[in-house]
């Protein structure tokens, strides 16, 4: 018990005392209630902390517990560096993210950008192939029946299993890594687009039919806008998978990239840098996900389908 530091006990206590987080959709502004209260004097006021407070405190407590656990683990022995030493190391790494000292020693900024570049190219190629393919598979039953068994078999295969074939075909590490990203991004894009096409309400297609619209008009005015939300979901899943896979692929192929950086630092036994890389990968992944969510919200026509 004495090994557990005081801050840990404190944050544990406050976690137990803190009110449970309020579950409500994030879009609902908690401030709305208060402004209504301010307009009319309420009959009675119950002493109550503002609603956003637990929502702000809960993640802080989460981080606190996480750091305390980490600290405890590093104190318990082994080679795990403490959070503080990792922080200092991170300050050092991020103080000069864009240096270049030869092909295998570059700043973390270059490594992240190189990985993002690979993801971008592989993913872009997958979108260029997968989205039209998804449209066709969704629109024509015959194509769907043709492609379904192949997709079903290939989809569960780990993308890394494709790497040897990539190396064999391209005879170079970089295109092989991009090709792995391409393969793993392809399936979600095809499947979601096809599902989207199949989910188009019959009403909309009936409109197209009674107006006898040209194929081009049907595509631009009905199919494409109706499928767009599904497509963005596919894109979002693909980017997520691609970002997961790139780290592993780069570990195998080497060169410049965040995955290779992790492997390189492992060879240097620089565990702090490995932890920094883990957080960097996580934060970049989160940013990608949030960006896609923003995009999805921009193109969703909520509740328009109903009533």
């Amino acid at each position, binding site marked *: 018990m004495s090994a557990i530091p005081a801050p840990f006990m404190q944050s544990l206590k406050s976690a137990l005392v803190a009110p449970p987080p309020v579950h409500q959709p994030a879009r609902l502004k908690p401030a709305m209630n208060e402004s209504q209260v301010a307009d009319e004097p309420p009959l009675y006021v119950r002493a109550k902390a503002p609603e956003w407070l637990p929502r702000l405190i809960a993640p802080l407590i989460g981080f606190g517990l996480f750091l305390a656990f980490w600290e405890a683990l590093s104190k318990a022995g082994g080679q795990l560096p403490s959070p503080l030493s990792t922080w200092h190391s991170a300050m050092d790494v991020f103080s000069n993210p864009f240096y270049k000292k030869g092909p295998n020693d570059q700043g973390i900024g270059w490594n992240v950008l190189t990985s993002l570049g690979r993801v971008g190219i592989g993913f872009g190629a997958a979108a260029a192939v997968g989205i039209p393919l998804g449209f066709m598979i969704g629109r024509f039953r015959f194509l769907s029946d043709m492609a379904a068994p192949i997709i079903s078999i290939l989809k569960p295969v780990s993308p890394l299993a494709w790497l040897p074939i990539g190396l064999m075909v391209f005879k170079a590490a970089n295109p092989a890594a991009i090709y792995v990203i391409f393969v793993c991004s392809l399936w979600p894009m095809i499947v979601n687009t096809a599902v989207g096409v199949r989910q188009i309400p019959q*009403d*909309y297609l*009936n*409109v197209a*039919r*009674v*107006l*006898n*619209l040209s194929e081009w*008009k049907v595509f631009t*005015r*009905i199919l494409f*806008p*109706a499928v767009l939300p599904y497509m963005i979901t596919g894109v979002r899943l693909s980017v997520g998978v691609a970002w997961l896979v790139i780290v592993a692929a780069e570990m195998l192929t080497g060169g410049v990239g965040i995955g290779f950086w992790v492997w390189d630092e492992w060879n240097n036994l620089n565990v702090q840098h490995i932890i920094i890389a883990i957080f960097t990968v996580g934060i970049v992944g989160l940013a990608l996900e949030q960006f896609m969510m923003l995009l999805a919200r921009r193109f969703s*026509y*909520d*509740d*328009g*389908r109903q*009533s």
Partner: protein
Amino acid sequence: MNGKYLEIDQVNMVFDTKKGPFCALQGIKLEIRAGEFVSLIGHSGCGKSTLLNIVAGLLRPSAGNILLAEREIRGPGPDRGVVFQNHSLLPWLTCFENVYLAAERVFASTEDSARMRERTAKALDMVHLDHAMHKYPHEISGGMKQRVGIARALSMEPKILLLDEPFGALDALTRAHLQDELMRIVAPGANSAGSTVLMVTHDVDEAVLLSDRVVMMTNGPAATIGEIIEIDLPRPRQRLALASTLRYMALRSALLEFLYHKQMREAA
């Protein structure tokens, strides 16, 4: 115009189902004059919407054929303006764009976009929606959506309007209001002969108020036309004034008699 503008001749409709062929419609024969308002009424499932969809070209009849202005109907086309029960507006287009899509389909080859925009605005104006034309469907009420649906059909200047329970999903007050509007829109005007309309409904009052003739369909399977009642009430019709007249009540009870006595359905 001659006596038969829309001619439905011995139409059968058989669907292939898992349990074998299902005969939905049997020997439908109906002629509609130009400018006439005809309602199809019957219990749900009697195939009245199926018949409308055949006229719209969305379904192909198993037998028989349909002539509109002496041309055979072989598929869907913009010469028939369809209004669906659930409005079927495209949610990513504004009301204006929804209507414009239809106007453009018909007139793009002969008119410039300014003229087609004018048509679109005119159609929306006709249903009193000019103030909301740049709103999206989810921003307006159910009644307004249905108005846009009607405007979309009108903007194509179709030979016939096909209405599939157009007001079925609306509340009673909105429905009454839209029925009055529809009467005004399809009535013969100073420069038009009046629209030809085929409407599916299950509302007896709606059928009597709006129609020149009401076609009553028997229950399926193999539904067919049971009786046809001529609604000889003078136009323009006033909902309130009519409701207390003897003739209106007689027509109304004739319809009810058919639906609830002759074609009574076991509780479905």
